[in-house]
């Protein structure tokens, strides 16, 4: 438990806006924790409090039982969503400088930087100025700066944004290694695909509040197995009657593949029957949990409605004019 991150009832206000409202969760070592939510949900505000860039107005944040402060900063690595490095400073020198700011001794920092640059096949760049590197290369450098001091908590805010598939794979490997080594990894994103494949635990935020949390499997299972995917060969028109009747909600519809969520009263075999009736060749028919993106959408909408009910504001439409 030495590197478990725990937030309890954390609240942060900026003027009139409550950016983070009573947020609680726990990220454990050796596991990947996904902090999800749309832009403006409060993820970055929360992360800033974890890294002690700002302090909460209420609630506590502890790392391994110790309240966060200047001492814990040295044990955390933070990759912010908006990347940035000193442009005119050489890569090697910059990495050593950043490592030393985290409390590493000079010799240790130099050795660690060399090791990480080699790991990323970037040894040749050590003497180059940051502005001479390509964007992908800069991101690798920035990632190294996040982990070079061997932090027990690694916080990555949208780490995959802008990475090509090859570098994304490399990043996934490295994250996996961190996890194996018993580090706590906190991963913030609004892009579901990256999360689904990686996270062990997740927490979904919207409007500053926690809307969903639990392990990935638990969360998905909570929503039941109400999604059907059909891969087929032929005209996709067979789906129209079902869709128009509102029996299913179309999540994805491309040539040869549809994914729908079943309505309350719709059984999976109705979709199968419709497809068979359409005379198409069926390659695959699967009933499964809804994709995270849709769970996300549903949860956020639900939270929005709850929020409106609380403040008494009208939803949309005619009612709004009278309010």
């Amino acid at each position, binding site marked *: 438990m030495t590197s478990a991150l725990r937030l309890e009832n954390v609240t942060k206000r900026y003027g009139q806006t409550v950016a983070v409202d009573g947020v609680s969760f726990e990220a454990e070592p050796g596991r990947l924790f996904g902090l999800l939510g749309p832009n403006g949900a409060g993820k970055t505000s929360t992360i800033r409090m974890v*890294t002690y*860039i*700002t302090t909460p107005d209420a609630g506590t944040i502890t790392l391994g039982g110790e309240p966060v402060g200047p001492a814990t900063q*040295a044990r955390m690595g933070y990759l*912010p969503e908006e990347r*940035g490095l000193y442009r005119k400073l050489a890569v090697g020198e910059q990495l050593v*400088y950043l490592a030393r*700011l985290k409390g590493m001794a000079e010799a240790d920092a130099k050795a660690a930087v060399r090791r990480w640059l080699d790991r990323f096949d970037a040894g040749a760049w050590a003497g180059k100025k940051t502005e001479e590197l390509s964007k992908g290369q800069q991101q690798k450098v920035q990632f190294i700066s996040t982990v070079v001091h061997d932090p027990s908590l690694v916080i990555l805010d949208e780490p995959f944004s802008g990475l090509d598939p090859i570098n994304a794979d490399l990043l996934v490997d490295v994250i996996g290694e961190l996890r194996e080594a018993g580090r706590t990894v906190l991963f913030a994103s609004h892009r579901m695909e990256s999360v689904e494949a990686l996270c062990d635990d997740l927490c979904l935020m919207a409007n500053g509040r926690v809307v969903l949390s639990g392990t990935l499997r638990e969360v998905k299972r909570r929503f039941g197995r109400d999604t059907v995917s059909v891969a087929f060969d032929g005209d996709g028109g067979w789906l129209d009657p079902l869709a128009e009747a509102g029996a299913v909600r179309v999540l994805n519809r491309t040539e040869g593949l549809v994914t729908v969520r079943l309505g309350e009263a719709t059984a999976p075999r109705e979709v199968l029957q419709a497809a068979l009736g359409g005379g198409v060749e069926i390659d695959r028919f699967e009933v499964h949990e809804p994709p995270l993106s849709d769970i996300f959408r549903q949860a956020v909408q639900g939270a929005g409605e709850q929020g409106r009910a609380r403040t008494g504001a009208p939803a949309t439409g005619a009612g709004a004019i009278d309010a």
Partner: protein
Amino acid sequence: MNKTLLIAKSEYLRRVRSKWFAVATLAVPLLAIGVFLLPMIAFSSGGGVDRVAIVDDAGLADALAEALQGRAAVEESDAPLDTLRARVLADELDGVLVLPAGLVEGDAEAEVRYLSRGGLDAGDGVRGAVREVVRRARAGAAGASPAALAAYESDVALRLVTVSESGDEADAAVGRFLLANVLSLLMYLAILVFGMMVMRGVIEEKANRIVEVIASSVRPFELMMGKVLGIGAVGLSQLLAWGALTFGLSLAAGPLLLAFVPEAAGDGGEAPFGPEAVGAIVDPGLLVAFVLFFLGGYLLYSSLFAAVGSAVDQESDAQSLQTVVILPIMIPLLFLSFVASDPDGGLGVFLSLFPLTSPILMVVRMAVTDVPVWQVALALALLAAAFVGMIALAARVYRVGILMYGKKPSLAELWRWVRTA
């Protein structure tokens, strides 16, 4: 290593190793000496002799020719005024001098005509010569003997000696005034340049977003102070380098000037700007005070600049705020001549103690007069208190500002940051 020092060291090395630093270190002393030397050389070799035509009905032409020797070449002429005027416009003459009869008796007025492009000076030399010659003629007509005339026109030996506690110096007043000007300009530039460097550094870190990573490793105050101290060290290094280079160059400049302008040699034939001459005007105590006031003024203004820089996102936004912060540094310059000519007056003393103006004006006072040590100490103490206060204030704005992006905060918002940070 303490984090503030780590940051300061990085800021220092980054700038001192840049090409900019090397260029500035060399260029400024060269420019300064050049700016001094070139006009002196140009002035002595330039000029040339004016061609003046005299229409003489007063019988003074010969005397005038003698009086104007070396400054104007004189030709007598009977030509009508219009012809002569045309010749001036055609650049065959530089001027026309009309001496009517009755001039000596005081019944008529002499006239000097010069081309307008001659500037303020044009015709002055001729005017002075005419006056001299006419007066001599009148004195002669009134019965004065040549001996009496000679006595009247003789030179009077008078030396201006400045009395001060460190000893009396002859002919020092002008030198000291010059020194006051040079030092105050240097102080103004140094505080401005290095203060702006702090501001630009803060904005750069915001614009390229690295500030967030750094804020997750150190306290914002440590970042701000590291920057201020590091750049302050660059400033000191630069000043010391300039001082050494200027001193070295001026040792060479003296003989160089001598080669062009032999008249510039001192009484003993030694080169100007020599170590003795410089030492007579510039007192080591003054230099030490200069450095101390630079440090105090820099700390005061750079923390202000850091706060300003943290309130904007990009360099372009900073332009408008820049003018606001430059004003307090410029105001002392406006009072420069006033304080230099009345250094011990009430206003002079006040301005040399008030922290916003003391870096420049106390140094000015010290250059032109003896300032009691307790006043210098008081000024330094007040300056220290002021910059400590300013740093505390600026840190609060900085802490909030570095993480804020988007619209520029109003002054009211800035004040709120100070109160709640």
